[in-house]
């Protein structure tokens, strides 16, 4: 019916979650579309299912009753039960067909990641249009790193624009400028992660130069994009006075007005277990929001719109 239908149906991406009534980040009532796959490996990541590019099967141990039915359900014979009752999945045999997820009586098995077309995703996003209109909200493309699925993210942003839906994107920015701009040119607000202000720190989560990140941020501002600097504050990584000074310095240099400080929390811990992924920050205590107040005040005193989120 529309000239854009064909491309919206043809372009696919891997999505691991579409969350409606997302109200914690960005303006108004938003729908967050989480794209799977990231090129960083931040040990504090609260969405570990976002990191791998391929779909993954997870088992929620707290829900699983160890009934063992899934062993029989699996067409590939990839699931087996150990002596203690624990169910394990042989990742080599598993074809991610989803039968075990569909049939588990407890909904203890969850397949993270589904290949979806832009058309399928935008149809879900559009369902809440009336809410966006009344609240000033819209679509947030999140990840993973959305710019790693550059074609899909770009087409999704364009599809939203064609429907007069406001678009925001969350990015860590460690991608070539061409990829960044391919998506960002269709995005209204960019929630840009600033994880480290020193090369040494950044090397712990990436093998790309930090300069690339800073340069992308700079170019976005130069190109007239509204950039919100988002700073996860992680003990043992960047919870230092110098880092807060650098945040202010960067933002000042780049002409960024809005800064969100995100306090470290342990809410993503259970997901590491369900994905059989190692988690290195088990012992780390949460940062209380109050602890960040002085830094927020410092930023406000310097003229920034600073807030505490996360």
């Amino acid at each position, binding site marked *: 019916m529309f000239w854009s239908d064909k491309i919206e149906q043809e372009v696919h991406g891997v999505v691991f979650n579409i*969350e409606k*009534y997302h*109200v914690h980040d960005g303006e108004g009532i938003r729908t967050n579309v989480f794209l799977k796959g990231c090129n960083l490996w931040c040990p504090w990541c609260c969405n570990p299912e976002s990191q791998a590019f391929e779909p993954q099967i997870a088992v929620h141990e707290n829900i699983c009753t160890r009934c063992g039915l899934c062993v029989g359900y699996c067409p590939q014979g990839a699931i087996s039960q150990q002596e203690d009752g624990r169910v394990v999945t042989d990742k080599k045999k598993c074809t991610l067909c989803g039968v075990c997820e569909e049939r588990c009586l407890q909904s203890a098995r969850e397949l993270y990641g589904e290949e979806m077309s832009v058309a399928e995703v935008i149809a879900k996003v559009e*369902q809440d249009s009336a809410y966006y209109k009344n609240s000033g909200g819209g679509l947030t493309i999140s990840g993973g790193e959305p710019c790693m699925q550059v074609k899909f993210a770009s087409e999704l942003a364009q599809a939203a624009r064609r429907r007069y839906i406001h678009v925001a994107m969350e990015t860590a920015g460690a991608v070539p400028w061409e990829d960044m701009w391919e998506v960002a040119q269709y995005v209204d607000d960019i929630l840009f992660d600033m994880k480290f202000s020193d090369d040494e720190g950044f090397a712990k989560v990436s093998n790309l130069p930090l300069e690339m990140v800073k340069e992308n941020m700079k170019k976005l501002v130069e190109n007239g994009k509204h950039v919100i600097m988002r700073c996860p504050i992680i003990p043992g990584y960047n919870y230092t006075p110098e880092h807060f000074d650098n945040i202010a310095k960067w933002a000042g240099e780049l002409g960024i007005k809005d800064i969100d400080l995100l306090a470290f929390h342990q809410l993503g811990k259970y997901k590491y277990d369900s994905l059989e992924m190692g988690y290195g920050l088990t012992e780390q205590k949460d940062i209380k929001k109050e602890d960040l107040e002085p830094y927020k005040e410092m930023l406000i005193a310097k003229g920034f719109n600073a807030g505490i989120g996360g």
Partner: protein
Amino acid sequence: MKYYLEQDNIKTGNTFMDREVVRSKRMDTLRNLLIDATPMIDSDRACLVTEAYKKNLSEPIEVKRALAFEHVLKNMKINILDGELIVGSLGSKLRCAPIFPEFNMDWVIEELDGKPFRPEDRPGDRYEITEEDEKNIREIYSFWKGNDHYSRCQAVMPKETELAKQMAVTDSEWLMIGGDGHLTVDLKMVAEKGLNHFIEKAEARLKELDLSDPDQMVQRPFLESVKITCGAVIALAKRYADLAREQAKTADAVRKEELLKVAEVCEYVPGNPARSFHEAVQALWFINLTLQIENNGHSISFGRYDQTLIDFYRKDIDAGVITYEDALELVECVFLKMYQLLKVISWDNTKAFAGYQLFQNFTVGGQDKNGKDSTNELSFLVLHAQAAIALNTPSISLRYHNRISERLLFASFDVVRIGGGQPAMYSDEVYIPALVNRGIPWEDAVNYSIVGCVEAIVEGKQTGRPNGAGFVNFGKIVELAMNNGSDPKTGITMKKGTGDLSTFKDFDEMYEAFKEQVRYFLKLQVTNDNLIDRQTELGIADPYVSALVHDCIARGKVMKAGGAIYDYAGPLYVGVANIGNSLAAVKKVVFEDKKITGAQLKHAIDTNYEDMTTSPTGPEIQKMMLDAPKYGNDDDYVDDIMVDSFRFVCEETAKYHTTRHGRGPIGGTWQPSTSSVSSNVPMGQACGATPDGRKAGEPLADTSSPMHGTDTHGITSSLKSVGKLPTVLVSGGQLLNIKVMPASLEPGPGLKKLVDVIRTYFSDFKGMHVQINSVSAETLKSAQASPSEYKDLMVRVAGYSALFTPLDKALQDDIIERTEHAV
């Protein structure tokens, strides 16, 4: 004079419009006194009514009822509590539940005999009774046994009524043992003109009557009864004036001044036009109180309180007679008077109306007939009073519309944050067109207010009970449709079907089988309720309340005989979401995906999804049915079926006439409503497993809300689904419960987003009503474990709030279960 004293204020910890809410020492003391008071059954009214009936055996029903009412008001025990500024209660006990023997006493005696429980041993809504009261009640029983409203109803009921009740598919029993209520009378006229004006109108009509004309002759008893009843109310007020003067003799100086003021007020109103805000507030309270004494109906409401009283308020403020705080103190006094009111109903019915609730509303906000926002100072004051008193009654109702004051809307959320779902919110954008659609002219439709849970009524012009008739259990109707019309539990077949789940060839055949059962049982429910209404007209008549509703005096007849200008009645639908969810699940799993056959599903349902010997097993089939599309997720697959089936049900109800049709009022028709009160729990207990994956005995979906636990896509999807229902047809009121985490209500940008969700639901999706529960499941569990620490913890049940701890455990569990799915 000064009513509000600042010293020794108590901080409530609640915030309203950026200020901490305090209670005066007076209000706090009274509130504590009442919260700690034990609900008591009282025999005073019952004995006085019995005396009057015995004395006036031969009088026409209107006069007999009027004389009984007069006898009660002139002789009932009265008291004034220390500190009260607004006076008048149902008896001398702190929280006092009178007995209405003229309706039915069988259940009272049975319960006193311990069947099923003594009043003090009930699982919820307990009452105590003194030896003396019990003795009095047992003594009068012989006069009423077989000589009451219930017996007169039973005498005319078809045999099907009892069968349907046994199956719990329709149930109108509560109408046979209870009165009508469910209305707002012309309170504005009482305040502005006084009851003497009504007496004069009746006298003028009596003078004109030509008794040789049979049509006029029959009007005389009612018109006489107007004089008797209104006169009796004035006399009661004067008794309070005398008592206040008496108490003043021994009071300290401050209290003495207050009591003399009370005496002055009660001497003057409600007989005469109120001269001050205090007098208007007291006059309205006397009317509400005495309406409670005439019959044992509930949901007798205050209407658009902010509109009715604003002129009195502004006059006193301008003259410097009172301050905002003084007016607030008076309204808070009324709120506590309302909390004091109690009516005891049978345990069986209490399960469907749990929580010591009389469903009395104060409506605020809305618009005038030119579409202008009606918000005024009293709109805020009423909300403020609720923030200060914060109990489960009265019910506060906010009328939302597209041009509502943002300040009033956000002030409402300050009250929502306190808990208990107050105020509930109702949208003019649907209510007004829904009423116009039933034939009410725009000018009156715009002036609607809320009574009971969600019923809209035109104040002083409409017969009571615009909904609130018999219950219709759609969970059971689905079950019957799937079983060829036969009830698996009782073996009863009332309307034989055309097949069962194992024989239906396609969706359409199943859908038609469902419709056939609906047609049969809605017709039966209307039949039952019309028969009851006819018996109410003949044996109860309600002359006093009729006197205060137009055009009863002009027409010389009570409401039940067609005296009111507008007239509608509505049943209470239970388990609406279970219809669409069940039909959609069978359509998807059996007819489209063909994962199992209808016979397999039937067996799984018959065995409550527990048979492990089949392949797939019972639990596996239950999982398939649960995974089918569910209403509340903005999924058109199931929502289309919901909307279509719901529209069918609504139109089926609206086909029928009330007993007043063609006898004077505009309307005279039945209308739908989705107010299920708390009956989704007992009615679910009577239902076997359903094809939506629900197991036998579990609660049905409440009201028009999604089935709890099945709306998994968040609040925006949930409200969008509900907004698809054709609410403009539901002129009896549509009800929606939502649960949010307390954090969502904290002031700030998050709250604005929640408000925007509600705004979208009302303005864009034409949602009709919403009530927001914000208490966390953890809090509820703690309250269940240590009730004494949570005596004033409020929750929203269905269209009304209740204190949580006195509820029956099954209902508590249902509320916790629903709360756990908060966003």
